[in-house]
């Protein structure tokens, strides 16, 4: 038995490689667990369904006779549905222990919200290929982004489980604004796709939503909410 030919490993190199792999695995595991705990797979299925619904609405021309409020009602409702799904995914079932132990939690929340918004946009843009979406893709991006911001804000203030209520309420406000020809930029779907005021307001809302959901997270469930599966 001889040690001839054996090369001494550089001290620490094995450890560094192993640590990096372990860390990467741990990161992946953490991400996977986070996504599962937020029911992201179900959310992805729902977003795909919402995209299909938009496709059906445009393909079979589910138009409502009437003014701009009627013309926008189906597309806006469908975009609202996507924003509602994204906001509900922010709900966490673990509460205090997760917050105490998870220093990556804010980044996971931010990443999940951004990724889901992008996926929702992709699903809706794919659905929009079946016909003519009022305002086109640019308006879709602005409206979906803004509504997601509203959803994230409502998750921050009333809880992720009821985060859907914010976009739904905003839908009614927008419909009222469209019906009464109001053009406030805060009801951005009433503005033209290239309108700067509407885009700025939508960006402000989505930025506020992302910042708050990242830093503060959703409001913790009340006494009645219980575990959310």
């Amino acid at each position, binding site marked *: 038995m001889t040690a001839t030919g054996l090369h001494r490993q550089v001290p620490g190199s094995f450890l560094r490689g192993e640590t990096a792999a372990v860390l990467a695995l741990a990161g992946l595991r953490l991400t996977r667990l986070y996504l599962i705990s937020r029911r992201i797979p179900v959310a992805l299925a729902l977003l795909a369904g919402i995209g299909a619904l938009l496709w059906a609405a445009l393909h079979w021309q589910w138009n409502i*006779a009437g003014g701009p409020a009627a013309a926008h009602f189906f597309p806006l409702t469908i975009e609202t*549905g996507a924003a509602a799904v994204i906001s509900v995914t922010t709900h966490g079932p673990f509460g205090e222990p997760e917050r105490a132990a998870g220093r990556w939690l804010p980044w996971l929340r931010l990443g999940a919200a951004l990724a889901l918004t992008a996926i929702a946009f992709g699903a809706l843009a794919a659905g929009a290929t079946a016909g003519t979406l009022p305002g086109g893709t640019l308006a879709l991006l602005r409206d979906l982004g803004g509504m997601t911001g509203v959803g994230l804000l409502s998750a921050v203030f009333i809880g992720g489980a009821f985060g*859907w209520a914010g976009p*739904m*309420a905003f839908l009614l406000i927008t419909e009222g604004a469209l019906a009464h020809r109001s053009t406030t930029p805060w009801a951005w779907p009433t503005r033209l796709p290239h309108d700067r005021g509407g885009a700025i307001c939508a960006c402000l809302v989505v930025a506020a939503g992302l910042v708050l959901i990242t830093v503060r997270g959703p409001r913790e469930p009340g006494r*009645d909410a219980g575990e959310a599966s």
Partner: protein
Amino acid sequence: MASAEVGHRAARTFGAAPQGTARLLRVNLRRNSMPWILLLIAALFWFDSYRPSIATSPLYGMRTFWNLGQGHTIIDFGPFVAGVAAWMGSREGRRGLGDLVTTTARPRWAAQLATWAATTIWAVAAYLVFVCVMFAAYARQGVGGSPPWWWVAVGATAVAAFSAAGFALGAYWPSRFAAAVAAFGGFVAMALSSRTGFSHTSGWALILPTNSNGSFDGSVQADSGIFYPWLPDLPIVRIMFLAGIAVAALGLTGLPARAGGPWLRRAAVAVTLAGVALAGTGIELATTAKVAANGIVIPALHDAANDAPLAYRPVCGHAAGVPLCLNPAYARWMPNLTTALAPVLLEVRGLAGAPVRATQVPASYPSGNGGPPQVITLGGQPPVLRLSLGLVNLPGPCGFCSGPVVSKAFANQVRLMFAHAFAGAGSGRGTQAQQAVQAAMLRVAGLPFAAQPRLIANTEDFLASGPRPQPAPSSANGPVYAAAARLAGLSAAARHAWLASHLAALRAGRLALKDLP
């Protein structure tokens, strides 16, 4: 001794069941998420249902067209109620308490129904309170007519149906997404209802809760709740349909094996089928609906007592000495009408065919052919001017018009319609001589010839019914306006004398333009 004990226990058991149910309901009322969402719904109700309505004429038919006729109170409540009901329905499943609850003495279905009942009590009670507060605000604003209470009942039933549908979804799918999906589904359902309802004025689509197309006062400018009662036929059918949906959805929650014993599940099957049958009956009845003068009539449900006109004490005034009487619901527009009618009544005062009095008559639901009937007609012996004011937009706020109706524009419209009726033009544009007399009367009343073609175009729906072979004249030129200028240029006495001697022939259509002075 033994029998006495048995009797005593039976009595306690008999009394204990309702007490237990009441306690269960009380607990569910206390531990319910619905009150929290009601704050949001209250804000939306104010924004979406109340606020737009006060921009319409202060008549119940107009005020409630947007919020009850087009179903905005249901849109404001329904999806949110469905979402919260789904959250409540999924409570046991989300918390993993299904097995635990199944082992309790009370069947799981009964406990679920208690949860649904508590959720629905909150929602329906809030709906009724909000609507009553809205009506109280209308009453303070002096809104004329009577509220459409049957349509309020439709809305309350719709809220219960949304609650039941959402609850069933939550019970079957205990997911965090159930609430969002239920609310989203509620919006999509209302959108589909509007899509079909806005384009269908008859048939099964009348069952849809947002369909007001030709079936609600505000959409047809009729006088429901003012001259005749709001007919309950269509609301009853919609209540049947929505209640059927609610019952069927609740029955579905009793079908799974964990819901209870075999008898209970058989009862759930029966309840589900009964709900489906009720909803189907409602749809079938809706297909038999007919438009009558006072609303939608469904023969199988119609009560002839509802056709009796409402009694009222008219409010009277005078226009150029001619008595004018209106329904008290329209009393606020008396000054506008007397001002509008005075100049044209002065022109014809003393003529044999001039009206001796003017009175308001009900505006009726359209028969569906030929457009709306004339707003102003003249007939009878002695001649009486009849005004169907429900058909026109009255001065003041006008809802979804381009702007409020100004008094001057209203006065010009009334004068035009009076001149049209006085000249005997009937339901068409009239002969050229009649058109010339009409133009001359308007000119003497202060409306220049140049402004008349536009006024006629804007008012034509109420002047001529049926197909129109030619468009209305776009400018005040041609032989008609030349003859009108000659007539208007006469002195008042000469014009009066010419009308006195030629009015009968003019109305009979026997005069040509050359016969005018």
